[in-house]
């Protein structure tokens, strides 16, 4: 990953009408509290360090923080775990909804140009490799077909009384992402995970290489 701060990455998305979970980067505990109060509890805290890619390995992620006291405590814990690393700040982010974790990604292929990828996300992404792709630009019809191509598509379209995810939201998110990939000439992009439920989605993490 390019050494882009998470904040700059989130700003880039907003330009295309793609809204990640409300968040802010805090340099101090006091700033963290201010951000949390602005976006509302519960929140998650995430370590932002150029040397740490797997945040959970160093205890760099705390979730479900309900109030100021717990926030200050969690903040201290993260810094303690990361004392060996250079710390850019702590990301304070609204807690994500519960739902189906998808990965939406992009890549610039040497032959075909920008392509967009949709798959089942989360921790099993590398195991099941349940992904499908299209060459950009794409339409909503393309996305509808892509969903059908995933082996685990019943998770998305609903099984046994489980409500389907908000497909309309998925369609427009994909089309916007495709537009961004091309216009920003991105080399690689991950929106992972994007958590969907029947109402909408939360983009939890973003990475890209320009």
């Amino acid at each position: 990953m390019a050494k882009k701060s998470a904040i700059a990455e989130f700003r880039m998305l907003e330009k295309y009408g793609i809204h990640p979970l409300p968040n802010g980067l805090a340099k101090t505990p006091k700033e963290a509290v201010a951000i949390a109060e602005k976006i509302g509890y519960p929140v998650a805290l995430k370590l932002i360090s150029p040397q740490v890619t797997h945040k959970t390995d160093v205890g760099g992620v705390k979730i479900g923080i309900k109030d100021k006291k717990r926030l200050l405590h969690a903040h201290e814990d993260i810094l303690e775990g990361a004392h060996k690393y250079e710390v850019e700040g702590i990301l304070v982010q609204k807690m994500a909804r519960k739902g189906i974790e998808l990965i939406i990604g992009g890549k610039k292929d040497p032959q075909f140009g920008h392509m967009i990828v949709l798959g089942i996300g989360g921790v099993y992404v590398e195991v099941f490799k349940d992904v499908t792709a299209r060459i950009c630009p794409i339409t909503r019809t393309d996305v509808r077909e892509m969903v059908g191509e995933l082996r685990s598509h019943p998770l998305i379209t609903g099984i046994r009384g489980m409500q389907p995810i908000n497909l309309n939201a998925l369609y427009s998110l994909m089309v916007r992402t495709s537009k961004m990939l091309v216009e920003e000439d991105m080399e690689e992009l991950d929106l992972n995970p994007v958590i969907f439920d029947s109402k909408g989605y939360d983009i939890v993490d973003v990475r890209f290489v320009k």
Partner: protein
Amino acid sequence: MRKDIANLKYVFNPKSIAVVGASDNPAKLGNVILKNLVDGGYEGKIYPVNPKYEKLLGLKCYSDIKRIKGKVDLVIFAVPSTIIPKLAEDCGEKGVRGLVVLSAGFGEVGNFELEEELRRVVLKYDMAMIGPNCLGVMNPAERVDSIFFPFYKFGRPTVGEISLVTQSGAVGSTVADLAAYYDVGFAKFASYGNGATIGDADLIEYLGADPKTKQIIVYLEGTKNGKKLLDVLERVNKKKPIIVLKAGKSKSASEAAMSHTGNLAGNYLAYQAAFRQSKVIEVDSVVDLFYVASIFSQPLPRGARVAVLTDGGGLGVLAADSLEKENMEVVEFSKETKGKLKKVLPPYVNVVNPLDIVADSGTETYQKSLKILMDDPGIDSVVVIILFQAPAVDSRIIDVLVKESDRKKKPIIVVAVGGEYTKENRRILDGYGIPTYGCPKSAVRTLRKFTDYSLFLQNKK
């Protein structure tokens, strides 16, 4: 269309052909090619070129291309690579429009400069070039043939509707050989090898506009211009089905990938995306290229409702399993159809789909049941399973199938598993445009792809 690409008509339909490197030594490619043109019955002028001979196979032999008095449309090169750019220049000056360069020793072994030199000469004169490093072309209708495989080893397809574009000569020739064995005809064949000036997309475009070509088989390892390929696939596949096999899927994702997506998206994912986007028919084996192309001799099915007619219970059940797995509907017969069937079948036959008319049923039972299934508008295609091993069944069944197939109401495909006797009958059926399969699974897999293409065309309207 680029001028050199339009000039492909001189490669596929030349009025005269020169073979540079012609020889009387049967071990040389130039000998096989010349012999194939003469024995194959090519009716245009043939000019052997080789300074060592006065005459070859009774034809006057020329010391170089420029010495030939008449017009030369196509030149086939079977000489060492290093002298080819110079000879191509001679061709350009003489007004030759098409070249087939069989010789290896260019970009594929790192001789990029030599290939570039050849490319420059060819484009300077707008010559259409197939190759280098390839098997070249066939056009069975005009007996044009640059394939350096002897007739007794490699069967030539008869005249038909399938055209084939292949990067690999090996894959292309095996598919053509299979087609020849099953008496399925070809319109054009092009093995383009390095594709120095004319590659996958150009040939597909050209064949897309060729009235003799009704289906296009494509074998690809990699493309030089993915965007162009996607564009051509999208446009041509709406007019005629394109059946693609892509090799090199296992190549690992780019090592430098830094994101999940980069890791997941190996070299193949982009090709798969392009194939899905253009709705071409992707297959994953060499024989499937042939199977899918040959099923298009049948009328397009309206939907996925299938009837199975068999004289062997087990094979019927296997077919039903495959149909379910491929998401095809093993349709329940209507009351009307059931009534009609009961009238023509022995009382011990259970009238359900798959319809097992049992092994002692003869040709007549097949004929009556098949006609009823063909007349039922609730059935989109019929899979006929024939146990040629059974005593009551013999080659007369072919007449029954051909008669029904000729009504062109809906597709009929045949499954016949077995040895020599079965294969002989399969070949005859395929020759009549009724596709046959050696197992229920490949039959159903092929029917699924055929149906998908048909549904794609229906949705487009």
